[in-house]
């Protein structure tokens, strides 16, 4: 499959003088939205580069008179999370160890489920899908205590594998939804012809569906990575003590300490650090939002 770049396959549009004006309007609208979206981030970044006195003295948007990276250093390696004053770095690894496997497993399972539900229909598959889908709406507080019992029974309490288990279980509904919808629109001709050629269940999946699923894999990975990385409730309840504590719980301990001076600058730096992996995922994944991957495939 040829590598497809963003600008290569595009829909030809009408060309007229009017479209130039429209394009300016387009940019204007997109620009205004961009500014609104960036505003809080701007506040956060600007605050993270000031000293505490400067934060108190200025207002939201005032630029730091003497930008300093000290809050960032502090957030990464010296700020206190409870009694351990080593910053965020240790918890970062915990989060990665939890998130990457959970995303991978839930995505694979979701893809397989979507595949089965759309290409291997059987009686009652609609109901199965609906039942799985409904799981997306269950608020997590409800499952907290029963899940605690379950994890205890499985011997997975207060551990990273336990967290992975939970995130896979509650991520399944979304991954299944995303892949199922995507595969529903996937032309069946390809699959049928593969079957005629003798390909079995997994081969069709591996050779035909998966390589053409890039956009939806991207969407799924973004959603799952974000949700799992940013989860707080399960993290604090099932990994609250040292060993497996994810970065969100550590961040909460830094930001929500109930007494003392609130070091807003360090908090903002810490929050941005905690958000970096997700941001990286977004940037990397963005390259795969390509149109027309299907273009050549259908003609057979």
């Amino acid at each position, binding site marked *: 499959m040829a590598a497809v770049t963003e600008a290569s396959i595009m*829909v*030809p549009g*009408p060309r007229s003088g009017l479209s130039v004006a429209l394009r300016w309007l387009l940019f204007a*609208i*997109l620009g205004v*939205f*961009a500014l609104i*979206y960036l505003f809080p*981030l701007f506040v956060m970044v600007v605050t993270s580069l000031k000293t505490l006195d400067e934060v108190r003295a200025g*207002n939201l*948007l005032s630029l730091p008179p003497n930008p300093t990276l000290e809050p960032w250093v502090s957030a990464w390696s010296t700020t206190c999370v409870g009694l351990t004053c080593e910053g965020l770095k240790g918890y970062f690894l915990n989060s990665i160890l939890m998130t990457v496997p959970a995303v991978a497993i839930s995505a694979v399972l979701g893809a*397989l489920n979507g595949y*089965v*539900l759309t*290409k*291997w229909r*059987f009686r009652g598959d*609609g109901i*199965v899908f*609906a*039942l*799985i*889908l*409904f799981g*997306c*709406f*269950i*608020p997590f*507080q*409800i*499952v907290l205590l*029963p899940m605690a019992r379950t994890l205890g029974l499985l011997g997975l309490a207060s551990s990273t594998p336990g967290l992975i288990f939970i995130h896979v279980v*509650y991520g*399944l509904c*979304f991954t299944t*939804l*995303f892949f199922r919808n995507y595969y529903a*629109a996937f032309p069946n*001709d390809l699959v049928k012809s593969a079957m005629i050629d003798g390909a079995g269940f997994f081969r069709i999946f591996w050779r035909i569906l998966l390589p053409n699923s890039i956009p*939806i894999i991207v*969407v799924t990975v*973004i959603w799952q990575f*974000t949700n799992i990385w*940013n989860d*707080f409730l399960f993290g604090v309840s099932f990994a609250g003590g040292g060993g497996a504590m994810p970065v969100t719980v550590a*961040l909460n301990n830094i*930001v929500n300490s109930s007494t003392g001076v609130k070091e807003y600058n360090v*908090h903002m730096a810490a*929050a941005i650090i*905690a*958000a970096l992996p*997700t*941001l990286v995922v*977004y940037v990397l994944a963005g390259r795969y*939002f*390509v*149109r*027309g991957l*299907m*273009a050549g495939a259908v003609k057979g």
Partner: protein
Amino acid sequence: MAVISEPAAAGRRSPFDWLQTILPKLVLAPSFAVTIVCVYGFILFTLYLSMTNSTMMPRLDSWAGLTQYEKLWADPKWTISLVNLAIYGVLYIGISTAIGLLLAILLDQRIRIEGALRTIYLYPMAISFIVTGTAWKWILNPGLGLDKLMHDLGWTSFTFDWLINGDMAIYTIVIAGIWQSSGFVMAMFLAGLRGVDSDILKAAAIDGATLPQTYRRIIIPLMRPVFLSAFVVSAHLAIKSFDLVMALTAGGPGTSTWMPALYMYSLTFTRNQMGLGAASAVIMLATISAIIVPYLYSELRGGRRD
């Protein structure tokens, strides 16, 4: 288009065919089983809890019938929570979807800086609300945030005190919520738009359809599954909106921005009224089902017809 069903058995049932029949269900089974236990099993557990007098921890032997439900409806905070959820839900889902679709369509127009813009709209989801909540609290705080900024810039008559106004505080949560996740809705729509077969579009162009017409008549109808996903995602976030509320208003001023998720959490874990919290959870789930199940039904029904 024919649905792929079990291989036509012309009398022969080779092990391979049998495996092909059973394999899909086998593959689906773990997910299904885990969902039955960890979703429906736990819901049943919660249902049972709601009929006990559990306080701090589950007390399965303290049967209370429907007393918790009576207490629930007698609690003014509960009615406030439900109303807030309705306001928040409708506004949040509606506006997120609209903005998401708008941005996706705009971004679909072959722009050079698409990558950067896409990341800008998406990034709010990346940042944990524990801290963007603080940033928003500042921005919306009269005297510290937007208000002060406008005054400093000269518009002294500008006031924006929604955050501390009991009637309007819920709308601040809507604003912050939309900011956070409409980017993801946009990403979903963009993926969907990009998945549209370009042959169809070329055919439409040849037929002389203008861009708006192409969008309205062809592309958006093809997006139905994406609307479903967008709805599910937004509804999920709206219901789960616990972190958001806690960070921005913590239910205040007074008790004006309580939401069902906050109610359930607070009563179960903070106020040691687990039975009551479970009752609220059951009602929440019932309300959600009442809205979502018909929608799912109609969508999935329609999907089968192809």
